[in-house]
């Protein structure tokens, strides 16, 4: 296959990865890794490098809109980024000593978990009684619903922080944004309304991914020939997805996509057990 054909196919594949990622909330990196490894037979380490870049591109691209609308909790994001960046660097360091087959199996498991998290019912209500630690850290805030601002408080800061560290490790180890884990920490542990938790998670992904991306870049995991079509494709797809999202209800699409993701995940786990990576 020539470089030109390969680049064009990868560009198209990444476009759909970004499109589906932004419509379903699963992030582009989740599709990029199976696409590169299962379809093109690319070594999983190169795939991780490319997927991290896809995560940064989509996070930075879409977070800007949510931040502008005032939905994202910037202070909460910054506080939790202590946990995710430390976790991400640790994860990127562990990755060197982890066999690629183990990484593939783990990726499959996290993929199934992420799919399940995406279709489950999310916390909608704003908490009126928060913990004193949350107040001291100035994490309580408001977000716009229609024309008015709704105030919310949060609790279980410690539990949320620990879960975030784990999310960071997974992100650094597998090269994904691990948005599902971040949302789990904010939604289930800290009781934050899902609009705030999903957008804040998205906002944090770029910083988490950049922390481990620097390690991967210096270790030679990032190939420009793969990075270029993946960055451009995923970003274009994510922008299209964000435009479409305002006009459609992606509920059914989300379920179909999640079922597909589970099949891909099982394939990754099977190949991992068979030592095909």
């Amino acid at each position, binding site marked *: 296959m020539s470089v030109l054909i390969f680049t064009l196919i990868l560009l198209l594949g990444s476009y759909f990865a970004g499109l589906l990622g932004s419509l379903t909330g699963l992030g582009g990196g989740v599709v990029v890794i199976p696409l590169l490894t299962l379809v093109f037979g*690319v070594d999983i380490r190169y795939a991780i490098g490319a997927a991290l870049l896809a995560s940064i591109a989509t996070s*930075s691209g879409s*977070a800007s809109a949510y931040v502008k609308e005032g939905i994202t909790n*910037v202070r909460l994001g910054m506080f939790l980024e202590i946990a995710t960046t430390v976790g991400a660097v640790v994860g990127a360091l562990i990755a060197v000593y982890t066999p690629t087959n183990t990484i593939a199996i783990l990726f499959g498991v996290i993929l199934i978990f992420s799919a399940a998290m995406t279709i489950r019912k999310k916390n909608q209500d704003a908490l009126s009684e928060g913990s004193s630690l949350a107040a001291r850290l100035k994490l309580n805030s408001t977000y716009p619903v229609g024309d008015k601002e709704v105030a919310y408080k949060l609790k279980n800061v410690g539990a949320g922080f620990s879960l975030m560290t784990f999310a960071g490790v997974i992100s650094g180890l597998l090269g994904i944004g691990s948005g599902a884990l971040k949302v789990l920490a904010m939604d289930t542990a800290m009781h934050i309304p899902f609009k705030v938790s999903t957008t804040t998670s998205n906002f944090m992904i770029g910083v988490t991914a950049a922390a481990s991306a620097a390690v991967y870049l210096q270790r030679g995991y990032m190939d420009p*020939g793969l990075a270029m079509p993946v960055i451009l494709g995923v970003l274009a797809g994510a922008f299209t997805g964000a435009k479409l999202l305002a006009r459609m209800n992606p509920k059914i699409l989300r379920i179909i996509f999640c079922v597909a993701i589970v099949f891909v995940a099982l394939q990754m786990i099977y190949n991992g057990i068979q030592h095909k990576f």
Partner: protein
Amino acid sequence: MKKISEIKDKDVDLLVAYLLRYGVLLASGIALLGGIIYLIQHGQEAIPDYTFFHGEEDGYTTYRGIVEGALTGSAREIIQLGVLALIATPILRVFCSLIAFALERDKMYVLITLIVLSVMLTSIFGGLKV
């Protein structure tokens, strides 16, 4: 012109939003430029073997190597410069937040942001090349 004491969270949010947007557009612009040159020069060649991991050479993994390579017009290193710009965007965002929190005189968040920034800078410059 606004007085420093009047800087509110909303202004910070806007600054962060623009930084993220233009950072990512600049990074993809550089990658696109490098990509076009790459395809013109190497488009007809067979794809490199990605099935075996051998790691990239110094020209693609050190900051100096990338910048020097890009300046000589090497297509793959121009793409890699775009990759660097992409990675730098969230780091710059944290740096901007640091300045914003300092202007707001929010000492606790200046400290929190400094911790995040130092973790990121450690990963970039701290010899984590294992």
